[in-house]
């Protein structure tokens, strides 16, 4: 177990190093920090002198080492546009994105489990057929189209919900502001969170359904029927409990994937989160902010994946923890 933890942790560190090298080479390629600092009017001589002083003429590895040392200490450079440390800018935007992810996760858990179980137990029921039909429609509709449709219907035509922004927020834990605790905030988050959930919810419904159907075919479930146990007990305790394992692992990875989709949702709803900020940073060629975003998002991905892997390794008695690589197939 200890060796497994060490190996997973080591791997996470290696991936983060690769991400940092890639991010740093982006910083190296994209834009000239001196031009951002000084403008065009400074002579070539002073420019070269400053270059030397700032270490911009050092070899790549020396510069990278400096970047890495600063990054580990939380210094990811200063945003050209905001004129503030890039990490601070991102941490300001992070709560909005996390609100969105929490709200979307809420919808996913609320609907996917009951619908998925029902569709597995009664595959020929009309509701299961409708649910499967809707789910394939949900998979086929790109998230930005769902978002536009929701805005058009509920914000423009019906006028029930606002179409952009976060609404009223409350501060919890100092600077951390959430819109999940005010009525106005909840009204604002409803449409964005539904459209974000619309990508993953159908996948979850289908996954829970197929895993559950597979479990219902197993010997021990048949034995439970033969024993004459009540239906509910067989469905929930015997079958559903055992479908949870794959659902948790795939689910954990999908939550990381949601971060990517927040870029689309936040853009359509002008939600002031990280994704919207990243796209603006790209259009402004705000290199430090782009790099900081890449590193933070990379960190989120690596941490979720490592945690999911470790939980999977601990929970699933069938995983041979020592033999790596072969642990995921079957």
């Amino acid at each position, binding site marked *: 177990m200890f060796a497994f933890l060490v190996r997973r942790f080591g*791997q996470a560190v290696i*991936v983060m190093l690769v991400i940092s090298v890639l991010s740093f080479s*982006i910083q190296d*390629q*994209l*834009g000239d920090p001196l031009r951002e600092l000084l403008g065009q009017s400074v002579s070539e001589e002073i420019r070269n002198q400053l270059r030397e002083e700032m270490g911009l003429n050092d070899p790549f590895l020396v510069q990278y080492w400096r970047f890495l040392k600063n990054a580990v200490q939380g210094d990811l450079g200063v945003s050209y546009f905001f004129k503030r440390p890039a990490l601070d800018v991102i941490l300001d935007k992070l709560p909005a994105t996390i609100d969105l992810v929490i709200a979307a996760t809420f919808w996913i858990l609320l609907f996917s489990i009951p619908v998925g179980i029902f569709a597995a137990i009664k595959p020929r029921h009309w509701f299961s057929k409708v649910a499967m039909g809707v789910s*394939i*429609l949900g*998979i*086929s*509709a*790109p*998230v*930005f*189209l769902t978002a*536009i449709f929701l805005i*058009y219907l509920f914000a*423009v035509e019906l006028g029930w919900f606002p179409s952009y922004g976060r609404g009223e927020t409350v501060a919890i834990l100092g600077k951390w502001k959430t819109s999940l605790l005010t009525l106005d905030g909840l009204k604002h988050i409803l449409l964005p969170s539904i459209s974000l959930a619309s990508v993953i919810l159908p996948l979850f419904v289908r*996954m829970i359904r197929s895993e559950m159907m597979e479990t219902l075919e197993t010997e021990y479930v048949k034995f439970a029927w033969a024993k004459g146990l009540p239906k509910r007990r067989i469905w929930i305790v015997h079958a559903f409990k055992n479908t949870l394992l794959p659902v948790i692992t*795939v689910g954990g*990875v999908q939550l*990381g*994937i949601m*971060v*990517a*989709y927040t*870029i*689309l949702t936040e*853009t359509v709803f002008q939600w002031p989160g990280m994704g919207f900020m990243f*796209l603006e940073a*790209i*259009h402004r*060629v705000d290199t430090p902010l*782009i790099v900081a975003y*890449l590193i933070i*998002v*990379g960190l989120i*991905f*690596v941490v979720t*994946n490592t945690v999911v892997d470790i939980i999977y390794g601990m929970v699933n008695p069938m995983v041979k923890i020592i033999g*790596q*690589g*072969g642990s*995921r*197939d*079957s």
Partner: protein
Amino acid sequence: MTGTSLTIKPGVWQRLRHSAVYHSFVQNRVAMVSAAVVLAFVVASILSPVIAPYDPWDQTRIDIMDSEIPPIGSAGADQRFLLGTDAMGRDMLSTLLYGTGISIVIGVFATVLQAALGISIGLIAGYFGGRLDSFLMRIADIQLSFTTLMVAIIILALFQATVGLSFYEDFAIVVIVLVIGIAEWPQYARTVRACVLAEKKKEYVDAARVIGLKPASIIYRHILPNTFSPLIVISTVQVANAIITEASLSFLGLGMPVTKPSLGSMIRNGFEFIFSGSWWITLLPAVVLIVLILSINLLGDWLRDALNPKIYDS
């Protein structure tokens, strides 16, 4: 490969008509309708230079005075433009035909690239096993954990920022295909590897080895054909996903440029006008996009049931 397909060819239709897949197809109305829809889209986009009334890529023939004309049947329509015009004065029908073509081309080529990379890596990992296998599969895991959309957004944003706009407009399609193609290889690699692991234990592989065939020939001639049914199912899903990814990129302004719009860029262009009442600029490409992807996905669903392959890792 060409050698084997030539020898099978004479009886291929005969065999197909008596196969279980054919019967399941004929009996499944959803599958037939979606196949017809996909085929119609493909044919229409191949023929678009012939059947489109205008050339939407020809900047000189667009008149800005023709902009935002609604489709025929609504007030203010113009007989020249069956489905109206967009904000730049382009004929919607022609732009839709060309745009559908671009979306399909990107979807197909990106999937072909994924398949080529993924199948080779999967075969190698599965056949040779050992350290090479675990190394390749760890890379696949890591690659998969960073979503294609995320990777594509980053790479295209950097590409757009580093090269000039005119260069970008010419090469956007190539870069999109490359990015989506390279980022999704693990989907194929994992499936192929799992198939190879299952097939490798079978006697026909032992037999091939005993008669002295080289590993390369065993892999390609004997194992690979037996992995085809799961690959066909994955491919439909992957084409649909690639089209969605391309549309999402274009919607963010990181995909196909305005001058050569795909369905996603058309939706992006129309999005600004949806609130001022010009609904058709967004709605028409949106409907085409959803119907196209839905048909491909339904076809994939049917294939999954009909071929019933063991999808080893979802």
